[in-house]
C-alpha cells in the first residue's frame, strides 16, 4: 500500500533525524578541521560553518595586526616621502609619475588606517580639523557660520534617519556623540581632535560609523535617484538591501555612491585624487564645481587625506 510505505518512510526519516550524531563539540571539530587544512586546496573540504569560522579568525587576525601597526589617522608627512616606498620597484612607472605630480600639488598627506572605514574616517577627520581651525581663528567669539550650519544639519538629520525606518534605540547614541563633538568644537584644539580620532574603541568609532548611517539615509531618502547606481548583477535595484549590505556594516569599504550620498547629506563637498598606474592622477569633485576643503587621495582600495598647504 502506497500510503503505508509513505508512513514507513516518514517514520524512518524522523527516526534518522533524531539519531545521535557524533558532532557533539562543533567548535572543537571545526578547530581540528581548520588545523588540518593548512593548504589552500583543503579549503574545499571544509563545511560552510568551518569556512565561516576560518574566515572570521583570519579577519580578526588581520584586524588585530592593522590595529597594532597603523594609527587610525597618522601625522602629516610629505606626499612623495609617504608613498614612494610603497611603489619602489613597481613595474608600472605610472605610479611613480603620479606620485611626483601629487607631490608638486599637495604639501602633505595623512595616512588613514586601512580597515575599510578609511573614506569615512578621512572625511570626518579632515572636515572637523578644518572646523577647529576656523573656530580657533575666531577666538572665543561666536561659533563660526560653517560650524553653525553643520550643527543644524546634523541635529536635523535624526528625524530624516528615523523617517527611513531606522530604530531610534539603535542610532540615538551615535547621533548624540556627533552632536556633542560638534558642540565641543569651540573648545577643541587640533591636538585634542587628533587624539580623539586615534582613541581605540572611543568616540571615533561611533561617529565614523554614524557617517555610514547619514550616507545610507540619504540614499534611502532619494531612492529613485540612487536606484540606478545600486543595481546588482541581475539588474535589480533595492536601495534598502544595498544599504544593509554595502553601507551599514562596520568596516565595509566605500564606493562612489556612498561618497555622493554623504556629501549631499551634510552638504560638505569633497575632492578626490585618483592615483592609478596611468601616470596622471585624475581629480573628481563631489559635487561638481564645488571648492572643497576636504581633499582625499584614492589608490585602489584605500583613501588617505591630502593637504594643499
Amino acid at each position, binding site marked *: 500500500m502506497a500510503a503505508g510505505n509513505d508512513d514507513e*518512510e*516518514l517514520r524512518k*526519516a*524522523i527516526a534518522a*533525524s533524531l539519531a545521535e*550524531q557524533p*558532532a*557533539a563539540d*562543533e567548535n572543537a571539530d571545526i578547530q581540528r578541521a581548520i588545523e588540518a587544512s593548512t593548504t589552500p586546496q583543503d579549503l574545499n573540504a571544509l*563545511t*560552510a*560553518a568551518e569556512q*565561516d569560522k576560518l*574566515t*572570521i579568525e583570519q*579577519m580578526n587576525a588581520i584586524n588585530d595586526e592593522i590595529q597594532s601597526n597603523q594609527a587610525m589617522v597618522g601625522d602629516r608627512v610629505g606626499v612623495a616621502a609617504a608613498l614612494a616606498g610603497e611603489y619602489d620597484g613597481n613595474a608600472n612607472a605610472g605610479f611613480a609619475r603620479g606620485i611626483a605630480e601629487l607631490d608638486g600639488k599637495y604639501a602633505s598627506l595623512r595616512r588613514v588606517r586601512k580597515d575599510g572605514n578609511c573614506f569615512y574616517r578621512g572625511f570626518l577627520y579632515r572636515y572637523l580639523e578644518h572646523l577647529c581651525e576656523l573656530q580657533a581663528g575666531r577666538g572665543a567669539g561666536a561659533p563660526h557660520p560653517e560650524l553653525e550650519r553643520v550643527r543644524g544639519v546634523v541635529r536635523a538629520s535624526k528625524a530624516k534617519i528615523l523617517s527611513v525606518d*531606522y*530604530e531610534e*534605540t*539603535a*542610532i*540615538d*547614541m*551615535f547621533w548624540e556623540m556627533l552632536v556633542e563633538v560638534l558642540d565641543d568644537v569651540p573648545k577643541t584644539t587640533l591636538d585634542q581632535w587628533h587624539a580623539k580620532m586615534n*582613541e581605540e*574603541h*572611543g*568616540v571615533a*568609532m561611533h561617529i565614523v*560609523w554614524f557617517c*555610514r*548611517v547619514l550616507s*545610507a539615509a540619504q540614499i534611502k531618502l532619494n531612492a529613485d535617484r540612487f536606484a540606478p547606481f545600486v543595481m546588482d548583477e541581475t539588474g535589480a535595484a533595492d536601495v534598502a538591501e544595498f544599504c*544593509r*549590505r554595502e553601507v*551599514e*556594516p*562596520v568596516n565595509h569599504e566605500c564606493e562612489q555612491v556612498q561618497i555622493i550620498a554623504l556629501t549631499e547629506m551634510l552638504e560638505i563637498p569633497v575632492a578626490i585624487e585618483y592615483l592609478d598606474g596611468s601616470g596622471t592622477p585624475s581629480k573628481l569633485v563631489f559635487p561638481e564645481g564645488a571648492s572643497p576643503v576636504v581633499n582625499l587621495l584614492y589608490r585602489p582600495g584605500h583613501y588617505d587625506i591630502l593637504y594643499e598647504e
Partner: protein
Amino acid sequence: MAFDRGRLKKELTELTRDTKSGVTVEVKSSDMMELEGVITGPEGTPYEGGTYQIGITIPSGYPFEPPKMKFLTKIWHPNISSQTGAICLDILKDQWSPALTIKTALLSLQALLCSPEPDDPQDAQVAQMYLNEPDTFKQTAKFWTETYARPKEAGAEDAAVARLVEMGFSREQVVKALADAKGDENEAVTALLSGA
C-alpha cells in the same frame, strides 16, 4: 572607553515595553551579557505552534560586533544545526551592523523560519532533505515542533490527577500511579484498575 551598556540597556527597556513584535527577551546574568530570547514559529510553516528559546550572548564589542545567538530549543531547519542549535545567518556574521538590534536579529530568525536558505546550509542533512524530499522535510520539521517546541501545557498534570481522583482513587494513589507511568494517564489508569 569601557564597554558601554547604555545602548544595551535602552534596547532591553524597549523590549520590555514592546508587546506587539512577538519576541521577548529575558536577562539571564547580572551583567546583562547573557540573555534568552523567545520567538514563536510563524503561521503557515512547519514551526507553527512552536515556541523557540534562543540563547543570546552579548560580546564586549557590542553593538559593533553581533550578538551571539543559538537555538536552545531543538529545531529541524536547513540553516540551524539540529545537533547544536548553531545558526547560519549573514546578519549574525559579516553582515551585522550597529543599525540592527537584538529585536531585529530575533525577528530575522523568525523570518529565517519562513524562508530557509538551503544553498547556505548550517545542517547539510536537513538541507538535503529540504531540497530532495520536501514533504518528508515538512513532516519531520512538524514532528520536531510537536516534540520539542510545544510549550508545556500548564496544569495538564493536575487535570489528569483530578480526572483519576474523580474515578474513585485516592489522591495519593493517583499521584504515585502517574509518577510510575511517567505521566502517561492511560497506563496509570490500567495500573490503578489492576490494583498494582
